[in-house]
């Protein structure tokens, strides 16, 4: 089926070449980081994780969100998701690949990455995270490919795919839970030491991932003959709405505990993020932008009459995605490091090389997504007339 990715319109090839160019620039920048060390990033002794790990965390959520389509479709037989579920699975493949790349570019000694497998260490959450992420990547590649292959022939997927699909449901929950555990069990990092962390991660994932999917589905419909279905998009819109409300609710719970207890260790990171601490306020505008965008998106989503308008829905999804990206891809990580272990403030801001590398990893993700979607869409365009039987 891959040959489908090799024939395309001029627009398709222009997009692919643009992505390749961005990846090329990023790769050259990465070589520099490889040679000079992570000193070329904004990271420091005090803020030792930053943009890379933030993107990793955020994208694990995007990957896990495929389950929001898989559950209704396969467990509740919600037929309307029949055409779109493959887009979710392929989005997961691209997101997990980006996760792995972000971990790789964050490593000080990337050539030793195999040490995680050579010296398996079950007491390290990072070990489990690599196990569940690797497994999830495999599952989604196999499931996505098998279903698409079946569609092409107009049959149902082979019997052995079903158990894998069921397995992928708890597995998706596990990848984001384990990722939350990376943070939520560290003594002395008060901002992260919270039992609701995993739940909050999942809520934000189930809002942000499907929101991205809606945007992608609208793009796919605009540029191809493949229509994921109006009702499917609206149904995902509802999922996004509930998940986003839950996410904001969980965040407010965190803020309540910190503010009402007024224990310094718990309040300081929030103060730093939203108001600034000891005269350091670099993240304040970003965090408020995230809050405002979150409110805007909820207002647009919560009224069915607004949500039904697809351009408003798209707008809401963009606002929501940006809001969550700031909150989880940036604020959440930095907040854990500021103030530092000595109650001092060291600020962090990504450097240019760091930003270029980050953008180019996203470009790799988009390239994978483009190719997979191209294949999926071509297959579906061919079989457009055939009603899928399941």
């Amino acid at each position, binding site marked *: 089926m891959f040959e489908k990715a090799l024939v395309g319109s001029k627009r398709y090839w222009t997009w692919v070449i643009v992505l390749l160019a961005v990846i090329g620039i990023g790769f050259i920048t990465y070589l520099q980081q490889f040679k000079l060390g992570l000193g070329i990033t904004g*990271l420091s002794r005090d803020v030792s994780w930053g943009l890379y790990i933030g993107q990793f965390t955020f994208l694990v959520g995007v990957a896990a969100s495929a389950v929001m389509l898989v559950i209704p479709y396969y467990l509740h037989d919600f037929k309307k998701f029949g055409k779109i579920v493959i887009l979710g699975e392929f989005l997961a493949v691209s997101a997990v690949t980006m996760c792995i790349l972000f971990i790789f570019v964050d490593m*000080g000694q990337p050539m*030793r990455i195999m040490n995680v497998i050579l010296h398996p260490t079950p007491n390290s*959450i990072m070990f489990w995270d690599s196990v569940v992420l690797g497994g999830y990547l495999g599952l989604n590649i196999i499931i996505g490919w098998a279903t698409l292959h079946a569609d092409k022939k107009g049959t149902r997927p082979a019997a052995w795919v079903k158990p894998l699909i069921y397995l992928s449901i708890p597995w998706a929950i596990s990848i984001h839970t384990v990722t939350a555990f990376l943070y939520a069990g560290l003594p*002395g990092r008060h901002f992260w030491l919270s039992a609701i962390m995993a739940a909050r991660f999942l809520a934000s994932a189930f809002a942000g991932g499907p929101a991205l999917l809606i945007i992608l589905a609208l793009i796919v419909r605009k540029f191809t003959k493949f229509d994921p279905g109006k009702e499917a998009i609206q149904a995902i819109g509802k999922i996004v709405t509930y998940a986003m409300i839950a996410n904001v609710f969980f965040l407010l719970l965190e803020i309540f505990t910190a503010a009402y207890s007024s224990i310094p260790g718990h309040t300081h990171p929030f103060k730093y993020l939203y108001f600034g601490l000891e005269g350091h306020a670099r993240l304040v505008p970003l965090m408020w932008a995230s809050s405002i965008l979150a409110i805007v998106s909820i207002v647009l989503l919560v009224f069915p009459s607004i949500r039904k308008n697809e351009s408003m829905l798209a707008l809401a999804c963009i606002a929501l995605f940006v809001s969550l990206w700031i909150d989880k891809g940036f604020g959440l990580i930095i907040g854990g490091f500021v103030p530092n272990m000595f*109650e001092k403030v060291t600020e962090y801001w990504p450097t240019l090389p760091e930003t270029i590398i980050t953008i180019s990893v996203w470009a790799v993700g988009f390239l994978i997504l483009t190719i997979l979607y191209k294949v999926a869409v071509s297959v579906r365009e061919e079989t457009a007339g055939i009603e899928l039987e399941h």
Partner: protein
Amino acid sequence: MSMDRREFLKIAGSSTFLATIGIGAGWILSRPGEFLEASQFLQTKELLKAKQWAMVVDMRKLKTEEDYKKVIDACHRIHNVPNFDNPKDEVKWIWLDTFEHAFPGQESEFMPEQMKHKPFVLLCNHCENPPCVRVCPTKATFKRKDGITMQDLHRCIGCRYCMAACPFGARSFNYRDPRPAIKEPNPEYPTRMIGVVEKCTFCEERLAKGQMPACVEASNGALVFGDISDPNSEVRKILNTNYTIRRKAELGTRPVVYYILDIPTSVVPGGEGNV
């Protein structure tokens, strides 16, 4: 898809799978040493032995700036710790900070001025329940049988999970090549490379030669080192007869670096009865 093609895919798929396993197994077998636990340590004849090495820092005995400087220089010089003059890329094994930063949450506005401003000597606490060891995905950071929290810099992948996990800010990452930033390299001690995490090792290389840690030796008795599991050790004697505190003991990492505070002797009316 034609039958032959499917057959072909099946064969291609399974042979790729087998080849992956084969290459993987071959790779593992070609590296026997790496599958053992990270190297414990050289059992030399002179090696000083203990169940859990520990340290007491007697703040009363650190008086002048010179006293502090000697202690820190002793460590950083012999261990080839680079000096970048830049807090972002800083590497340090032993350093100074005030009470409020060393013991956050314990300070008060009205504590004696002398205590407020007097720098504390800080280093890795060689915790008995170390979170840095718990989180390390490669066992590059590990607990030795004598209680030292050690790291294998050839195994470290530079993920910096241990830096996020250490509540004492004891660990430094090599953001840049450290070698050009070492003023007078000590040929007897290895230098490090880009991308690995390092910290105080309780001078395991000196213990192996029967010597006390360098900072202890340079401290004029202010730093005392010994086996905390031995009731007759000097550290235990000091702990039995002095009030000591540890950094962030409430987190349960069980630090074994203890501090005797330098509390100014004061005259409290009516207090004589307590003497």
